[in-house]
């Protein structure tokens, strides 16, 4: 498989009035096409910074980010899904989903709209097409948010802890839903999370970051058995991997305190 995204020797400094914060220190990793990768790390280590850099919302202080063979990041190739669904409550579900199309005004608008409609049908939300998002449950809102992202047909999906606002039960099922949708649509995804089991159950690859300034501590290739994230949790290897990651992360947290 080809690499869709690669970070090479990326450094990033945040500027504040009092200080210059060294956030990312020589970050290197690759993301293959149609893979599901996760980035885990202690809180505040710069995970979201990596997503912002990938989306082109920030520019690296030094180093190279290559997306789909281009150094100039084309934000149309990126779909960003946030912690909160950020649905606009004054727009209908349909108007929310087509927001990206409305903004980017693509040439093939009709095709994109038809595709969005198809997605709604496929993922059982067509009945809510003209409803306001306030009529939906938390899990459904998150699904609408995902379809809004997919409707623009991005090459790479960026997921910034998209389940953290949901309660545990919903979280597991939405996790399955989202995983299923991403795999069915053959998308490449990059997930940022501090939930180790979530990362393990969804990913083909995990990039472990150290605390700030973040460096890549480890890169794990995973091959857990199971068709859904929930099933993967039952793989016998799951718990040993969990232990391994947990120890790595807690060492980092401790290191931060001293």
């Amino acid at each position, binding site marked *: 498989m080809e690499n869709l995204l690669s970070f090479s020797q990326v450094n990033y400094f945040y500027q504040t009035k009092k200080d210059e914060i060294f956030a990312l220190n020589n970050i290197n990793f690759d993301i293959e096409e149609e893979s599901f990768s996760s980035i885990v790390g202690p809180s505040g280590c710069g995970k979201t910074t990596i997503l912002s850099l990938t989306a082109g*919302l920030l520019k690296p202080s030094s180093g190279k980010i290559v997306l789909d063979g281009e150094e100039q990041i084309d934000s149309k190739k990126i779909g*960003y899904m*946030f912690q909160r669904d950020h649905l606009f*409550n004054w727009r209908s579900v349909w108007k929310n989903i087509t927001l990206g199309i409305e903004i980017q005004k693509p040439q093939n608008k009709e095709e994109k709209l038809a595709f969005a409609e198809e997605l709604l049908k496929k993922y059982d939300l067509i009945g809510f097409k003209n409803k306001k998002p306030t009529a939906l449950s938390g899990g459904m809102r998150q699904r609408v948010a995902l379809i809004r992202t997919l409707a623009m047909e991005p090459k790479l999906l960026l997921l910034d802890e998209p389940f953290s606002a949901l309660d545990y039960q919903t979280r597991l099922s939405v996790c399955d839903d989202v995983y299923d949708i991403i795999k069915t649509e053959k998308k490449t995804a990059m997930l940022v999370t501090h939930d180790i089991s979530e990362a393990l159950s969804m990913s083909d690859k995990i990039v472990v970051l150290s605390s700030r300034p973040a460096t890549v501590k480890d890169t794990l290739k995973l091959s857990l058995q199971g068709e859904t994230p929930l099933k993967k949790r039952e793989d016998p290897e799951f718990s040993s991997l969990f232990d391994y990651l947990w120890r790595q992360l807690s060492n980092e947290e401790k290191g931060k305190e001293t």
Partner: protein
Amino acid sequence: MKKKEKKPNFSKSHKLYVRRLRRDKFIVIFFRIFVLVAFLGLWELLTYYKVLDPFFVSSPSRIIKQIGTMASNGTLFSHSWITLYETLIGFGIATALGYLIAVLLWWNEKVRKIFEPYIVVLNSLPKIALGPVIILWVGAGTNAIVLMCVLICIVITTMSMLSAFLSVEEGKILLLKSMNANKFQILFKLVLPSTMPEFISVLKINVGMSWVGSIMGEYLTSKAGLGYLIVYGGQIFKIDLVMAATVILCILAFAMYYFVSLLEKHYGTSRGKG
């Protein structure tokens, strides 16, 4: 997702609950009317038996008679119309201009920072102090009254709308940015529609403020209008006229407020916190 049932079978306790709600509502409405009737009745009685001197406090029947005469000789409508006209123009200009200024200040952070202290000063300045200056600049009459009205409403409009614009969730702006939206799109797709409820409440505040503005303006300089009647009535000790004008003012202000609240019903429910 909970489905709404169309005709559920009510239990007995639910029936009781609904009945109690209805009874409470009835009590509120009953006493609301009772307070008004009692107040007017007492006023009428006390003045009828000369406990209070109607020369100083007027009375409901005298006010009605006064309004009746004014209606029959046409002065009721001409004076009301003049004040209503001034108020509506002032209200419209102040709301539109104040909103526009808020948008400009939202758009450019530097401009916002430059003007921030001036706006704060203008907000705390009692606008009536500008009265003589206004008359010198635009002359006595309708212009001065409308300008007074605009000055009273515009600063609060700008301040309220600006703070609403600035409190739009950062995450939602980031979402639009990640879709490659420009500032214009962020303004029209997110900032303006999401601050609709704040805009409605600014309209409500402005209804009250614009009446203050136009009456204040008429106190300052006028040859007609409800504010003029009030001042004139006070000067010739015709308290019936003062009271009649005040009652009409109440009715007009309430009607205007009612139209705004219709708008609110239309837009108000379209946004929860999201």
